[in-house]
């Protein structure tokens, strides 16, 4: 279980430009929850995931993972528990290293790295198995540098890398946003399959309202650093995109405004 209590994160404190990126966030994530997160530009969605991952420190509040207070742990000390993928396909894989090398790095998530050979036969078997699940045929191209893969292939590989060790929490920050529609839907399919198969607790930011309704068992909506809506599975299944946007307007008092939003 992940518990966020009273999280605050301000930027440009004590200046006229002060931004409340996270404003008293309270969130309890139950084991196996797959939560989709939506909100207008600058709502604080990315900041929330970065705070949970430890990429940025919070000003106050407490972050607990399975009862352990990780609020003050640096990113690399939390990494064993948290898999994370960014919007940028370049960010979650190492371009100069081969597929098998990237996977070898990922399979030691959060563990000590020593002087044992990285790419071994048993590991290769594991990599092939994991890649086969994506259905992209990458298991036959293990020695190809990742920089030569397409954006969609790289995000699919990033997914395998993020989930290979079954982290307690998977954080996806618009991980299909930079892909063309076909690749995006493919990567979403793979995401759903992997998350479901391993019952991974997942937070997924998306700007696609339809995606936000279709995937996961819970939906939260953010606005100006706050969580303004938290919808459970039943209600989520009944909602339409139009109703969701109407709900946003009534909760926030403004119209939904995200430059990348896909409302249809």
């Amino acid at each position, binding site marked *: 279980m992940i518990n966020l209590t009273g999280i605050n994160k301000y930027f440009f404190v004590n200046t006229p430009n002060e931004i409340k990126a996270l404003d008293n966030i309270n969130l309890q994530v139950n084991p196996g929850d797959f939560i989709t997160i939506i909100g207008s530009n600058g709502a604080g969605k990315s900041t929330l995931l970065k705070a949970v*991952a430890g*990429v940025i420190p919070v000003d106050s509040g407490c972050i607990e993972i399975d009862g352990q207070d990780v609020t003050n742990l*640096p*990113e*690399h*000390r939390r*990494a*064993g528990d*948290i898999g*994370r993928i960014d919007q940028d*396909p*370049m*960010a*979650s*894989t*190492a*371009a*100069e*290293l081969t597929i098998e*090398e990237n996977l*070898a*790095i*990922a399979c*030691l*998530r*959060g*563990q000590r*790295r*020593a*002087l*044992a*050979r*990285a*790419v071994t036969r048993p590991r290769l078997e594991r990599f092939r198995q994991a890649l086969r699940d994506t*259905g*992209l*045929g990458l298991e036959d191209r293990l020695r190809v*540098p*990742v*920089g*030569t*893969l*397409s*954006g*969609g*292939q*790289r995000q*699919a590989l990033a997914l395998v*890398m993020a989930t290979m060790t079954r982290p307690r929490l998977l954080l996806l920050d618009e991980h299909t946003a*930079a*892909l*063309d529609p*076909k*690749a995006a839907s*493919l*990567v979403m399919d793979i995401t759903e399959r992997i998350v479901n198969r391993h019952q991974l607790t997942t937070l997924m930011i998306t700007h696609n309202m339809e995606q936000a309704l279709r995937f996961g068992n819970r939906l939260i909506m953010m606005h100006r650093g706050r969580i303004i809506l938290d919808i459970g599975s039943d209600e989520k299944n009944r909602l339409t995109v139009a109703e969701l946007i109407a709900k946003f307007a009534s909760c926030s008092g403004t119209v939904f405004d995200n430059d990348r939003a896909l409302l249809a």
Partner: protein
Amino acid sequence: MDSVIINSLQQGLIFAFMALGVLLTFRLLGFPDLTVEGTFPLGAAVTARAVVEGVDPLLAVLLGALAGGAAGAATGLMHTRLKVNNILAGILTASAIYTVMLRTMGRPNTPLLAYENVYGQVLGWFGLGETHLSVIFTLLVLTLAVRVVLGWFLNTDLGLAVRATGSNERMIRALGVNTDNTKLLTLIIANFLVGLSGALACQAQGFADVGMGIGVLVAAIASAILGETIFGGNRVGRLLTGAILGSIVYRGLLALGLRLGLPAEDFKLMTALLVLLVLTLPNMEIGNRMAKGLPKKARLFCRQAIFSPGAAGKTAGARNHGREVDN
């Protein structure tokens, strides 16, 4: 054998250790480490002082290399713990090293011809005399040993973490690696090799001088680039072997230039021009035609490794950005 070949082989092998060090930091870690201009003569100075003090030559060379490693640690700590910019950290260490060398030797130059050197010592164990060929053979064995050890290291879990730090620091941190430590480790290993290079150089030439380091960095970069350009390949093994061969080719070119009557005082300028040429050729019209023959990876290295370390991967990916998934 022709003296041009002998000379370039010996020099090339001695400087190969430095080229390997520079390959580690500049190319694989994406860290433009300027410490090495100081590390090279430091290795020589420490070795010279030790030999004069009566230390066993082999141990003296090891001390020189360790002093190099310590210099790398200084730069690494400055950069990671004190958050000093990477280039500035190297410059500060290199500058401080100048004083350290003068203090170590007590004067700017130490002649060593009167003492037994490490080559004579090692060859003596096998009952061999110290000839050009036997020295080259000794160096070759050591170079190959270092090549094998580095090749092994860079393919271990830790070695991959080092390479990933150079390729995508954000990613490897998200996977639980403290990149401060991988940077520090790489700087220590690289500068150990550069110190070793300086130590072996002073043993071969029979003196150590505080001015030995001037221009060695650009020569090492030229060697690494030559190696990657000529011998190509994007697997680390190829890069390592390329740096060694590149160093020999580079020294060969210099020796050839001398033989053809080019004045020695022009060498540093010509080296700088050579590096500039290889770096920019791929960007120019004629260069594009000529560069067709170069391996793609080498061209990437040329353009990016030096000018914007760490950016190579981003561009490689950017080309593919947004392309469809083929399934």
